[in-house]
């Protein structure tokens, strides 16, 4: 049987083109790789190569013909052993639409809400048995304890990053790990964020459980390609074959007087990416329980710490295995008049603001999101249904922020409960300045949070 040659597409968007020139004539012998013709579109001219061998039996579309539809039969090749065909040639003008070609637009776009799998109800924090001792621990120590416990538990867990081993951590978060676990599992890297983020990600794909420390998340911008393109997307792109259980951790947000390049909150950046888990704890107990959960997690986790909180002490329950659920917010203070949603360093400020407000007779509820992706919408919406007023306090820029996301959620899913517009209290929309007075002006503080709360309470 003769082989039909069809008008090729030069690009996914090409629908028709000009058959500029035939380089083979009827009766010519064709070898695979021979250039048969030149095809032109408004963008380019391309050569059309033979795939099959045989004899060019018949040219159905003459050179110079314009607007030849992709898929139209343009010539016939007699294969080996074929008799020159006497059968009538297909009409060239009728483009044959490949029957099984996938439509570029789904016939019916699936309704995300209906088709998306129902979320498992978020797990609750583990009960702390009565009589459990609480030990005052710094956030720094809590994070280290979590890593050490998980490294004892699972030999696949290791830590890598700049100054994590011999120097004991630029912020001393990895203090003591080298002595206990040795250089195989506590690896000092060169200053080469893109490279070691890639090596860590590859090691996770290869079956290990890396904890990659960035000295600060500002430097992770050099490595963000691996966090997003390699770690977050590969499970999906592989149809679920490629796991990437990795934790990228380090301080995030403004520190103190270090200027614009070292002071930025990346929470909203990472929280916008499907395929990532993003955690940003405030106190020591949450830092420990969530770090342990992050290390055990099968998905890639971005774990955002805060340098200004590292040295603060909080009670941590003395429990064998204190692991907290990912994706569950925590009500830090119950209240009935207004809800303050916040995370990371904002939690401490919101609690201070709530204390001030209490003296004025405003009873504020403070919610620590703890996980930024996936967001615990239910806890926020339940609180909104109770207080009917909500503000967001975020140490970060206002534009495209976690705050703007929460405002959207309140509009879409909590509108009927709102007695006032949702307000956001964020940093000023400028690169963070160095001068002490300007820096103070740019960052959120308890006074601004309290002011916004009064405003939505119309007081």
């Amino acid at each position, binding site marked *: 049987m003769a082989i039909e040659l069809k008008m090729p597409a030069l690009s996914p968007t090409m629908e028709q083109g000009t058959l500029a020139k035939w380089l083979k004539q009827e009766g010519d012998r064709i070898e695979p790789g021979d250039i048969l013709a030149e095809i032109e579109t408004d963008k380019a001219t*391309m050569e059309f190569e033979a795939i099959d061998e045989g004899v060019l039996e018949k040219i159905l579309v003459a050179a110079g013909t314009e607007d030849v539809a992709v898929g139209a039969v343009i010539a016939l090749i007699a294969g080996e052993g074929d008799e020159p065909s006497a059968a009538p040639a297909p009409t060239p003008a009728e483009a044959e639409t490949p029957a099984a070609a996938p439509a570029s637009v789904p016939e019916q776009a699936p309704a995300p809400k209906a088709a998306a799998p129902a979320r498992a109800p978020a797990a609750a924090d583990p009960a702390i048995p009565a009589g459990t001792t609480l030990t005052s621990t710094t956030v720094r120590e809590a994070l280290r304890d979590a890593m050490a416990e998980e490294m004892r538990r699972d030999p696949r867990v290791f830590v890598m990053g700049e100054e994590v081993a011999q120097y004991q951590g630029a912020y001393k978060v990895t203090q003591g790990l080298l002595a206990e676990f040795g250089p195989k599992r506590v690896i000092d890297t060169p200053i080469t964020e*893109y490279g*070691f983020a*890639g090596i860590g990600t590859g090691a996770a794909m*290869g079956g290990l459980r890396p904890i990659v420390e960035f000295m600060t998340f500002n430097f992770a911008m050099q490595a963000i390609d691996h966090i997003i393109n*390699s770690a977050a997307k590969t499970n999906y*792109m592989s149809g679920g074959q490629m796991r990437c259980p990795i934790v990228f951790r380090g301080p995030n947000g403004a520190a103190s007087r270090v200027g614009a390049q070292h002071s930025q909150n990346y929470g909203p950046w990472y929280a916008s990416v499907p395929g990532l888990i993003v955690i940003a704890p405030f106190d020591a107990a949450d830092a420990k329980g969530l770090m342990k959960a992050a290390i055990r997690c099968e998905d890639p986790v971005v774990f955002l710490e805060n340098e200004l909180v590292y040295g603060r002490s909080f009670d941590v329950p003395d429990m064998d295995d204190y692991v907290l659920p990912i994706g569950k917010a925590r009500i830090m203070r119950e209240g009935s008049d207004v809800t303050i949603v916040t995370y990371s360093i904002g939690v401490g400020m919101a609690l201070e603001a709530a204390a001030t407000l209490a003296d004025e007779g405003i009873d504020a509820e403070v919610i620590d999101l703890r996980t930024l992706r996936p967001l615990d919408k239910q806890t926020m919406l339940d609180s909104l249904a109770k207080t009917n007023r909500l503000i967001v306090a975020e140490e970060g820029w206002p534009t495209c922020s976690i705050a703007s996301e929460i405002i959207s959620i309140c509009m879409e899913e909590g509108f009927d409960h709102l007695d006032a517009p949702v307000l956001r209290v964020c940093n000023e929309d400028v690169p963070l300045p160095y001068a002490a007075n300007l820096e103070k002006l740019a960052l959120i503080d308890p006074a601004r949070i309290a002011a916004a709360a009064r405003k939505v309470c119309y007081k």
Partner: protein
Amino acid sequence: MAKQPAKKSATAADDADFMLHSLQAAFEAKKRYDASPEEMLEFYRQMLLIRRFEEKAGQLYGLGLIGGFCHLYIGQEAVAIGLQSALDNERDSVITGYRDHGHMLAYGIDPKVIMAELTGREAGISKGKGGSMHMFSTEHKFYGGHGIVGAQVALGGGLALAHQYNNDGGLCLAYFGDGAANQGQVYETFNMAALWNLPIVFVVEDNQYAMGTASSRSSAETRFHRRGTAFRIPGMEVNGMDVLEVRAAAEVAFAHVRAGKGPVLMECNTYRYRGHSMSDPAKYRTREEVQEQRDHHDPIEGLKKTLIEAGKTEDDLKAIDKAIRAEVASAADFAETSPEPGAAELYTDVLVEAY
């Protein structure tokens, strides 16, 4: 004193450093692998399978059945087959960039599931959610299939770290192109791989063009095997159009890495006959240049000559081609007729766990 690479004279600075040339010297001493007749026939069959598969993929692209970007491996077949035939598939891992069809076929992965991925069908190896550039087979320790130029080199460093950490005796074979060779993360990885003595073979598939830019227009040093020198990584320069030469080089490189001596940088000089991707009209080179490669350096024709000298007949080889054409045609049929992924697949595999 070991023999210096025959082709090009080395500078005085290079002469002082024997280690960086030792592998090349061992390779020069025995440049073509002594393949058994069965092995040679298998190399031929595998290269031809890649060739026919890619031709068919080009055809299906032309018919609109394959979308997006589609980078064909035609011309480069000897690289994947020469190297991967030398792997220990129980232990070793492979990672590459977006021009990945050939590396998958070299594993003997069913052409059907590869072609079905190209057409975006549920039966595709990534359930139709990855496409041409994003295919993986963890079962075979093939880790992709990566679309960001150069990313696979650092990821390959991580796979090598896992081999070392687990002490499993495996090595990672990390392919990248002459274009990727100018990415910074490649050198970040060279540095750490050498520093930590990682079991990895870096392979530059130099097909002469970084998309449309000739390597001489993009690379200050086009002899890519020398680019490991600053990191004390020994280099090898290999004719990537000769499968037996590539295989011989693989033996030398793998033995070095398996002996715990750290990474190797191998440059395989090759040529892609088609454009960078299917939408590249390839106007940056002449037709004569491509034809010269096809006529005088084709890896399949080259091996065919060796096979015929060894007593195979044209008919023997034609029968192989016929069987491969049938296999590829049936893969294409399968890829055209199997169903697209169900709408519910949109939401699966985003995360592994439920939160």
